[in-house]
């Protein structure tokens, strides 16, 4: 649309023709009050708060439905307009309970804000207000009818945004009421998006109801710990006796990669931090064979002495290579980096791995040397055409599903789905190709032109034609693809122009675990241990011999060939079905937040901090890196980072070599690639400008500006902040940036709370190694309310899961019907 010029309150503004006046004004810093308008959802013109005067038009006009055109003249504030808005509020308040002192929304309520702004302090009425009891609609959602101002945001958020359509309006006139699909209960995805959109305290969440006041919390925005999408979530934290307690999860200022979105797990799934099952004391197995609480000093001493002894032992069953290390899918990049560095330089072993849920190594290998072909999660919201092969985003990648739906609604994006079982996103698909079960590999051959590859499938050819006719395409594929299958799919796409890829993986930092070198054969940045390049100098005594994979380590442990197993945030005994009795001979150390199957048989258990209790960065499955901030605090636990440093120290390692801290450690991150002894030099990238330290105009609940401390952002972004402590994970980040080609971060954005995309294409071509064995990949197959071990210990999610199971078929099946 061409730009037009129009006047608002005497100011000349310019915007594309057809822009909604309310949006054009917001962009220019003129705020027009609104209850029913919600960016991105359909227009209602119902609340009449946004009325403005347009020259030569007899009636006041609603700014939320007026589109701008050349030469128009508007007034957005005048006595007449103020009076209209005031009257609307008076009318609303007439029936409003005004129980602000106890209302959850108190202090974050748009009705309060508007009343504050427009007055209406005096009640015109003496009649009794209409009253209705509060209703519990589900274990997550409560409805307090008298507070409802009927703005219909929830209805649209659920219908248009979530494609669930669980909310509607019943009755009419002053009896009109928001009603759930089950009559008196909700049968839905329990995402809480309706609660989030509600401008008042009519919809509230079970987790937060009557818990505290917003101003009594600290609001810490960090990254959700549950799935591979990595939503920004703001945790409301309150001081309690044994630390700081999380009382709320929400999407407070909507400034993250997830925009408006947060799913049930991100919003409600935080109570695991206070689970009674939490480990809070180090445990050491005593002579009687039981795990006994000990002090941290004691536990660290036991572990470091034993590991040192094994490492230094010259017996057949000794030395670094007799120790195996398994890392985590939910730890930070810094922790994972440190863990492998610890394994490789302190323990002296390449026996390092993690439980791989996704074959990122194969993906990165396939993409090597091809820059700008890996999609960011943000691309899924704007891509003109998307080919989704495998996976079920609605269940496993709720944010991705949201983005695809939004893209479909706003930009009529064309979605093509190839799947072997029905998925809900088919509702948005232009075409769906029903593949035979596990027919994914043949699909690539078919797409590449082999007509017989798929056998006889209806519509297959029209599907292929349509996909091939797209000028640009975002190919998103699931964990059904591994090893060679990924390479052939990527090869098919790379042969075309404007094709980008994304590979779906499970946990909050599965991608980071792979990126950071939790692999027996790959160093951070997927650099093969066989040709370690710069790492040869950085990591003294680095072995160029690949180590064991995780299952190999467990097997070796069972056979008595591994003297020690060091396991961080992972439960391989359960995952690989290892016989616990068989592992008796190995010295097993587990750092975890719960007593997992593996921890239960360990010799030493070290209580770790969860992702919500520490700082660092994580990388989502799209390679978008985000900052994790410490929100809660739990007495007794330590972050994995600190535990590792202490153990290394206990073993007599030079901690300063492990973690570059203190004077002399400051490194301004280089923008170009480090000198690698390989044949690939990535193009230097200019650091993009800051996307913004987010604040909004006081419109939504996050009425406060973004949480970034500008000064700290500035210092950190320039590497000027001194890492004073060996426990500061940012010191490891400095090193990661220096050594990992794809982690040349735009720190200014990172520290301002924005996501920064990493380019797997920067990985050296020479890193081609043998494909991963497919059986190494164990997808989590999490659903809307599950999230591995963490989910099992999250009461809110367990409850939602059983509630939904008790009232309906699984959502995806019902939806696909």
């Amino acid at each position: 649309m061409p730009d037009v010029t129009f006047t608002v309150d005497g100011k000349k503004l310019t915007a594309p023709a057809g822009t909604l006046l309310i949006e054009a004004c917001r962009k220019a810093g003129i705020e027009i009050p609104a209850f029913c308008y919600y960016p991105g959802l359909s227009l209602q013109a119902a609340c009449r708060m946004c009325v403005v005067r347009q020259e030569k038009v007899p009636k006041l006009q609603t700014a939320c439905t007026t589109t701008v055109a050349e030469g128009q003249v508007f007034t957005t504030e005048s006595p007449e307009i103020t009076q209209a808005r005031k009257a609307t509020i008076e009318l609303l308040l007439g029936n409003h309970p005004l129980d602000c002192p106890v209302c959850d929304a108190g202090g974050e309520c748009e009705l309060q804000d508007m009343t504050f702004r427009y007055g209406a302090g005096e009640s015109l009425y003496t009649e009794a207000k209409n009253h209705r009891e509060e209703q519990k609609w589900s274990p997550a959602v409560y409805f307090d009818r008298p507070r409802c101002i009927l703005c219909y945001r929830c209805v649209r958020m659920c219908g248009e945004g979530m494609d669930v359509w669980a909310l509607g309006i019943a009755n009419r006139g002053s009896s009109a009421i928001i009603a759930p699909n089950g009559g008196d209960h909700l049968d839905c995805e329990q995402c809480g998006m309706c609660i989030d959109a509600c401008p008042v305290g009519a919809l509230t969440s079970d987790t937060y109801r009557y818990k505290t006041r917003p101003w009594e919390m600290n609001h810490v925005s960090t990254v959700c710990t549950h799935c591979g999408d990595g939503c920004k979530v703001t945790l409301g934290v309150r001081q309690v006796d044994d630390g700081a307690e999380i009382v709320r999860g929400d999407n407070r200022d909507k400034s993250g990669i997830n925009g408006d979105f947060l799913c049930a797990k991100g919003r409600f799934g935080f109570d695991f931090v206070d689970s009674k099952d939490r480990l809070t004391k180090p445990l050491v197995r005593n002579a009687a064979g039981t795990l006994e609480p000990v002090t941290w000093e004691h536990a660290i001493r036991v572990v470091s002495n034993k590991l040192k002894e094994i490492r230094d032992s010259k017996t057949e069953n000794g030395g670094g290579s007799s120790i195996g290390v398994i890392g985590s899918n939910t730890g930070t990049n810094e922790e994972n980096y440190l863990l492998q560095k610890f394994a490789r330089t302190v323990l002296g072993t390449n026996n390092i791995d993690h439980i791989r849920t996704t074959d990122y190594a194969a993906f990165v290998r396939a993409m090597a040397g091809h820059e700008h072909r890996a999609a960011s999660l943000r691309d899924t919201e704007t891509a003109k055409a998307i080919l989704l092969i495998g996976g079920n985003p609605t269940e496993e990648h709720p944010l991705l599903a949201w983005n695809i739906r939004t893209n479909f609604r706003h930009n009529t994006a064309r979605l093509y789905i190839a799947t072997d079982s029905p998925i809900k996103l088919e509702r948005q698909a232009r075409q769906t190709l029903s593949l035979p079960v596990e027919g994914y590999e043949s699909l690539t051959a078919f797409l590449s032109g082999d007509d017989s590859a798929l056998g006889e499938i209806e519509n297959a050819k029209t599907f292929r034609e349509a996909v091939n006719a797209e000028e640009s395409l975002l190919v998103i594929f699931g964990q059904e693809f591994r090893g060679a299958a990924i390479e052939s799919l990527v090869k098919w796409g790379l042969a075309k122009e404007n094709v980008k890829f994304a590979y779906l993986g499970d946990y909050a930092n599965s991608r980071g675990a792979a990126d950071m070198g939790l692999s027996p054969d790959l160093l951070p940045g997927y650099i093969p241990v066989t040709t370690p390049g710069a790492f040869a100098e950085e990591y003294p005594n680095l072995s160029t011999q690949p180590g064991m994979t995780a299952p190999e380590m467990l097997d070796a442990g069972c056979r008595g060939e591994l003297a020690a197993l060091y396991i961080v945030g992972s439960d391989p005994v359960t995952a690989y079905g290892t016989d616990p009795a068989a592992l008796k001979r190995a010295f097993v150390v587990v750092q975890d937040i719960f007593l997992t199957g593996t921890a239960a048989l360990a010799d030493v258990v070290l209580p770790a901090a969860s992702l919500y209790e520490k700082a660092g960065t994580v990388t989502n499955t799209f390679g978008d890196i985000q900052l994790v901030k410490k929100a809660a605090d739990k007495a007794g636990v330590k972050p994995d980072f600190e535990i590792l440093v202490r153990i290394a120290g206990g073993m007599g390692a030079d901690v300063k070599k492990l973690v570059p801290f203190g004077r002399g450690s400051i490194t301004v991150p280089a923008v170009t690639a480090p000198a690698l002894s390989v044949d690939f030099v990535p193009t230097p990238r200019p650091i993009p400008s800051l996307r913004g330290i987010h604040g909004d105009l006081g419109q939504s609940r996050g009425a406060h500006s973004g949480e970034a401390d500008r000064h700290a952002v500035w210092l950190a972004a320039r590497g000027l902040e001194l890492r004073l402590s060996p426990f500061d994970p940012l010191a490891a980040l400095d090193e990661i940036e220096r050594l990992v080609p794809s982690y040349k971060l735009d720190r200014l954005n990172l520290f301002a709370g924005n996501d920064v995309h990493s380019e797997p294409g920067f990985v050296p071509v020479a890193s081609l190694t043998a494909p991963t064995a497919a059986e190494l990949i164990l997808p989590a197959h999490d659903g809307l309310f599950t999230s591995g071990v963490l989910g099992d210990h999250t009461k809110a999610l367990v409850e939602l899961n059983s509630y939904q199971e008790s009232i309906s078929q699984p959502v995806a099946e019902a939806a696909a019907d």
Partner: protein
Amino acid sequence: MPKLTSHPDEVKIISKRFGMGAANIDRYIELGGYEATRKCLAEGSEWIINEMKASGLRGRGGAGFPTGLKWSFVPKQSAKPKYVLVNGDESEPGTCKDHLIFLHDPHAIIEGTIIAGLAIGAKMGFIYLRGEYRYLIEIMEKAVADAYAKGFLGKNIFGTETEFQAVVQTGAGAYEVGEESALMESLEGKRGVPRIKPPFPAVVGLYGGPTVINNAETIASVPHIITMGGAAYAAVGSERNGGTRLFGISGHVERPGIYELPMGYNLKKMIYEVAGGVRGGRKLKAVVPGGSSTPVLLPEEIETLGMDFDQVGKAGSMLGSGGVVVIDDQTCIVEFALRTISFYQHESCGWCIPCREGTDWLKKSLTRFHAGFGTKKDIDNIQYLAENMMGRTFCPLGDAAAMPTLGFVKKFRKEFEDHLDGKPCPYAKHVEVALV
């Protein structure tokens, strides 16, 4: 069947077949029916629209928009199918004219629908009946079935290449679906809530297609206009107000009923001559000229008032649906205001705040006020509320509720004041307000 009333001043155009068994298709044809449609099939779209423009016919649904002009707004070319929609939702208190047409002359509706379709190039028409008009559904459906049987509706109407289909549909009982866009929502099977305008129905209407929506009486006038010619029709009425309309005179008159009178007919004469004057020889207190949403007029305001859209508008009220409600001197205006607002409170769809909350509070305040518990400040509050609803709502229902209230408070403030100080209603002896 309700008894038909009649008066010598009447000019029977729309009502000319009333009481003559014209619901029977053969009888209708005998009385000259379907000739207009044949003529239109021969003459074509442009000619029809020109005749309609010449007729000066203005919409009988309430707003009085020139019908020919409305039809001419429909784009010639359209990717989506176009539709004709007959608004038979007639629910405004004081209004019961359309039902007589459905009852006595359903084929006039069908003919008008086909002609509108020919004019705008639609192949489909919907005749939407008010939910409560259960007893008219059968009549209307039979008429449509008969028209199909005769080949007047269908793929090749009257043996031509032209297609036109018609369907009868009913509402579920909501005044608000008389509003054109809410009617479309209802017809599409959704909640009867209005749509955002623009776009207007002529461009994006039913199922997203260009749609002409007209009141049932407007549509029923069409074949007559075609038959007598637009100019001749225009000549019957007053300036810029062509033809006749069905005035429904109710309230405290001797001979309430539906009378077809030329546009511009004097209101005083209508009450005192056509309807036989105020019942029981009582004094006239006030008149609601065009359905319950139109502001009340005082006796002195109707002396020379011609009943057409422009003159009533100039007098500070509206011709609306042509439902004249006569109020005698033994009626309590506060109670009348309460009854009126009660209707709108009940019928507000609830979509927008000023109407949903405003009608509710007006009803509450007036209820208390009429019961004798009002304060002086309440009178100002009632006026303040109504003033703040005016022009602020999503659809005109809010105005329809606020306008009469404002009229009552402004013109009868003294009667309100007479209710103060816990006094029982001083007018309460006689309150059978005959709202039909």
